[in-house]
């Protein structure tokens, strides 16, 4: 194949240079290496248990990778090791083909840290020019790129405002702009939406979607399942500094799923008759729960849904909605959290999980 390409190059002298650059691009290890590789990475701080015990993972180019885990599981430590902010105690890894800690590996990398704390005495525009300089972006390019990004994150009207006057949401926006200055090949987002309003979350989702379309790798640290569910291709769960589970989101969705059916009996139906109809749903689901005007089922496959619908209609029930819920990720997460803390899931957990799910749903509906 490459032989063919080379001979073709010889024929078309006009295209020679561009062809050659494509050939070198193919053999350049920088371009073929996975975005992120980690092999048995470990980080211990003095005396305490390791923050990251044994981290092995590969994130391919163009993947949107969700890194999930409860607070304190080692997510931030892992990202900091990838970025060379922390040196690992053991193990090794590569970022865009360069060993961790090598600044050349960070040339095409963007990073939004967890707390978005920046030099507050700079204006938004000065801040972006500073970081453009740190990326060694030529001034001519920066002059185009900075206003463009201020626009993307909706801060064009605040370009000359000092960062100290910025709200948390605005700081997040300028932080995102900073992470995208160099048209990165890998972007690390560490809890990019924690404590933000829905607008801020939406922006992050939109930006991740854009990055995915451009083929950029995104490494998303999060404990907010909705955004992971909506944006990620693949997720890994980290617990006590070790990856306990990795799966693609598609395979998660293919498995067991919850269904919420908004239905009610016709006005003239006896309550006992209705109870029999509801009990009949056990054919498809182990659990049948009535929750206000809805019935919640857990079915083994999406393929059961038409049959369930047909059954209800034939029995005379009035069906308003039949909506599958992709809660498998949430279930998995709660399993991880529960075994982490070794206590049964607290009401707070449930509430958080439910509100997260509702958010995910509404966001999907908007899509």
């Amino acid at each position, binding site marked *: 194949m490459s032989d063919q390409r080379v001979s073709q190059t010889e024929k078309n002298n006009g295209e020679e240079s561009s062809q050659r650059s494509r050939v070198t691009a193919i053999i350049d290890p920088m371009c073929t290496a996975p975005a992120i590789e980690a092999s048995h990475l470990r980080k211990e*701080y003095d005396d305490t248990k390791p923050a990251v015990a044994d981290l092995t993972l590969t994130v391919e180019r163009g993947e949107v990778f969700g890194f999930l885990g409860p607070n304190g599981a080692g997510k931030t430590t892992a990202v*900091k090791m990838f*970025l*060379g*902010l*922390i*040196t690992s105690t053991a193990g090794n890894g590569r970022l865009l083909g360069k060993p961790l800690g090598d*600044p*050349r590996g*960070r*040339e095409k*990398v963007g*990073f939004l*840290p*967890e*707390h978005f*704390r*920046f*030099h507050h*005495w*700079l204006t938004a525009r000065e801040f972006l020019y*500073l*970081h453009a*300089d*740190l*990326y*060694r972006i030529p001034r001519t390019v920066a002059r185009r790129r900075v206003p463009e990004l201020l626009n993307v994150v909706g801060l064009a009207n605040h370009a000359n405002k000092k960062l100290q006057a910025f709200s948390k949401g605005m700081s997040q926006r300028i*932080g995102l702009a*900073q992470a995208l200055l160099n048209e990165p090949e890998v972007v690390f987002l560490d809890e990019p939406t924690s404590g933000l309003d829905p607008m801020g979350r939406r922006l992050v989702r939109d930006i991740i979607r854009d990055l995915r379309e451009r083929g950029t790798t995104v490494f998303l640290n999060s404990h907010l399942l909705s955004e992971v569910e909506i944006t990620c291709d693949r997720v890994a769960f980290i617990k006590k500094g070790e990856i306990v589970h990795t799966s693609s989101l598609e395979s998660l969705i293919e498995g067991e799923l919850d269904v919420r059916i908004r239905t009610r009996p016709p006005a003239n139906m006896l309550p006992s008759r209705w109870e029999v109809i509801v009990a009949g749903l056990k054919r498809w689901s182990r659990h049948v729960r009535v929750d206000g005007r809805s019935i919640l089922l857990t079915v083994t496959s999406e393929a059961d849904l038409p049959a369930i619908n047909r059954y209800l209609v034939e029995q005379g029930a009035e069906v308003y909605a039949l909506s599958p819920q992709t809660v498998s990720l949430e279930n998995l997460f709660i399993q991880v959290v529960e075994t982490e803390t070794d206590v049964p899931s607290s009401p707070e957990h449930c509430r958080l999980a439910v509100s997260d799910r509702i958010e995910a749903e509404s966001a999907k509906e908007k899509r």
Partner: protein
Amino acid sequence: MLRTGVFVIARLTFREASRRRILLAALALGAVFLLIYGLGIHFIRQDMAKQRQGLQRVVAVPIHSFLALSALYVVNFLTLALAVLTSVDTVSGEIDSGTIHTLAAKPIRRWEIVLGKWLGFVSMLTLYLLLMAGGVVGLTRLILDYAVPNALRGLALMWINEILLLNVTLLGGTRLSTLANGVLAFAAYGIAFVGGWIEQIGAFLGNQTTVMIGILSSLLLPSEALWKRAAYEMRTALADAVPPNPFFSSVSVPSQAMVVYGVCYALIALVLAVYNFNRRDL
């Protein structure tokens, strides 16, 4: 060249000092100081001209020298304080606040961050020293018609002194919290000051043990020794006529070896600061 990591960070550091009005406050204070000094020596000169018509140069020169060295002592103290106060939180503060994360995650080496900050501070402190010490030397020349001897050599020693304290504070910032670092820097300076004083009195009384204590305290931090050497260089030939005082008496003169020690001390502190920051988890 001007857009390499070191210079980007240096400009950022300089800009921070001016944006946070540290430099402005120091310059305003310096201007007030120079004004007071200028007015003071102006009236002293008038007074001396009135009271002692045809005053012998032999008497006038030690007084002029005393005035100029007093003012330079204050300049030395102000620049050292500026060196410590501006740089005390530059590393530890950025680590605590988290602003360092976006900087250090860029394609930049750690040493570029430390040396960039260092360069930013050095250029700021050099500018300040030139304005202040140059102001004192100039005013003395203009108003009292007295040229401070070896002013350039003296200024060079004061400059080394500033950089010494800057480097020590930078080093502290790579290991200690901002507060601990500030306390340590000023405590070390205080020890060196008291030690220098004891050394002068010991030498005056001919007590070798106290001189040794002074020299040992100078080894701990040679800042006072560097100043004493600067004062010695800039003293008048009629130095013996200058009243003894703890600030710039040169009964016991720090040797050239102490100056070399000071330069090495500063260099090693900077190298250690880079080394510590390189290994530090952020």
